[in-house]
């Protein structure tokens, strides 16, 4: 399968991205950074697109919410998608505001029927306003959202089925949640509909807190742990379609060669998973 491997675009990594284009297939750009961009900034982004295919990743829409998505932000996303023409765009299965208050980060909503309905409605609305394929990403959380009446897996699968959108499977988020709430991450991935997995995020994090309060935080500031590469292999076994695998790194940048090394490990893991799929005729959901 024609799987693609790339990195999240950060201006700090510009030299590495430009000088290693032959080792990258795609870059992911944070859409929100360009919502109010000048013509000059958009032109620059279009120049980047002449070098490598771009996918856009949103943060602030808060689509997994009982509240309606912010129409102004959707319009900004639509404008950006029109101008940049990404291969696809993605957002999070999270909420970021409630009762007129902006939380300032991605928060896990209660996993209940009202947020499933709200997410379905918002995803439909977002796809119709933006007019381009949307992928939704599972998030990491440090607390089990209160008010939930179903598991994260059930909640995600219900939203995917109801909205008929595809999944951007963030493996470090699955790993972090599995560590924080004690479930089997590989089993989680095997039970996600393989046909809906279109893209994958890999990243690193760190442990915070002490003893019983210890939690794995998805901070994108550290190397991708071995466990995530193992999960990538499982995801490649299960996914029935070509995957776009993005390495996310938001700071504490190592030499670019180290990041390329992580992408090479990702290629190897995906290839291994694909081979396993062929050899063992793996059946995931």
């Amino acid at each position, binding site marked *: 399968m024609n799987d693609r491997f790339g990195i999240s675009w*950060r*201006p*700090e990594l*510009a*030299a*590495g991205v*430009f*000088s*290693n*284009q*032959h080792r990258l297939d795609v870059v992911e750009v944070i859409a929100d950074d360009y919502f109010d961009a000048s013509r*000059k*900034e958009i*032109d*620059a982004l*279009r*120049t*980047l697109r*002449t*070098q490598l295919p771009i996918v856009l990743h949103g943060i602030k829409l808060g689509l997994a919410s009982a509240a309606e998505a912010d129409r102004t932000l959707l319009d900004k996303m639509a404008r950006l998608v029109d101008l940049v023409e990404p291969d696809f765009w993605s957002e999070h299965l999270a909420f970021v505001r409630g009762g007129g208050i902006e939380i300032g980060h991605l928060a896990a909503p209660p996993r209940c029927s009202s947020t499933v309905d709200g997410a379905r409605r918002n995803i439909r609305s977002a796809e119709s306003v933006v007019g381009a394929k949307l992928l939704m990403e599972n998030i990491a959380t440090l607390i089990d959202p209160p008010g939930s009446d179903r598991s994260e897996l059930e909640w995600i699968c219900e939203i995917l089925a109801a909205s008929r959108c595809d999944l951007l499977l963030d493996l470090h988020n699955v790993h972090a949640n599995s560590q924080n709430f004690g479930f089997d991450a590989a089993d989680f991935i095997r039970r996600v509909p393989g046909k809906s997995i279109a893209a994958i995020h890999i990243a690193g994090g760190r442990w915070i807190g002490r003893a019983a309060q210890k939690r794995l935080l998805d901070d994108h500031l550290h190397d991708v742990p071995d466990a995530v590469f193992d999960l990538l292999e499982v995801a490649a076994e299960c996914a029935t379609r070509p995957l776009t695998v993005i390495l996310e790194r938001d700071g504490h940048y190592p*030499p*670019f*060669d180290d990041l390329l090394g992580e992408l090479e490990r990702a290629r190897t893991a995906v290839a291994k998973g694909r081979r396993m799929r062929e050899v063992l005729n793996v059946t995931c959901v």
Partner: protein
Amino acid sequence: MNPFDLSGPEFLVFYSLFSAAVVLLIVISRRLTEKTDVALPRLSDPYQIAYLRAGNDEAIRVAAASLLDRKLLELTLTGRLATAAAAAIDQVRRPIEHSILSRYKIADDVSTLTTAPGIEAAALGYKKELIELGLLPDEPTEHGHHVVAAVAIMLLVGTALIKIGVALSRGRTNIFFLIVMAVVANVLAYWAATPRRTRAGDALLSNLKELFTGLKMRAHAIVPGGANNELAFLAGVFGLSALPAGTFPFANRIKPVQQSSCGSSSSSSCGSSSSSCGGGGGGGGCGGCGS
């Protein structure tokens, strides 16, 4: 109304408007005839970007800076460049790097960097590529630019000369301001008519500067050694002056001497990197030129 019958001050207003119209016409015609979107190849060569920004000498200097950063080239305290080791030549892949290292197998003064024929020829390869990409004007386009410039200058000089003739025939000798204005107008018209880059080249450079702004802002954090090619891209896109002198002290010693204090962009004594102006002082000299 005959403009040449206007009084002195009135004619100066007319002439400034006329000059502005000529320059504006040149700019508009360029906007109408040149496209900004061209098919771009992978821009993974920072020296090519340096050539696009500032030409042959700049591409050579950026390549030398990158080689110095990677310790494949050495710059002695006495201002002599030398290839670090014969094996270094086999470690580089770009022709311009290869030619620099080959040239300085025998140490020579840093001032010879941009004048050595072998190195110049290697850098000129970029010119050909950039012309083919439509980022630099080709020969017919440059010829067209010069025709436009010549027509504009003839119009501006001719108009000024006629007025000067009329003024002198009427016994007026206060033509100084008109001469100054005519010189300024002609310089502006020539500058507008003969751009070094095409509009697509200008647009690409502007976009690259935007994309690399983050790198420029964290220039102080760039680690020497060339691991991420960051020095080469930073210098390629923004020039050697964007390199922090504390981290990359050699940058000041190979960059061109600032010419602004000389009052002329073609002053030979300042334009070269001779020891009288350059040396290790980082371009702070040149005080005696033009004074």
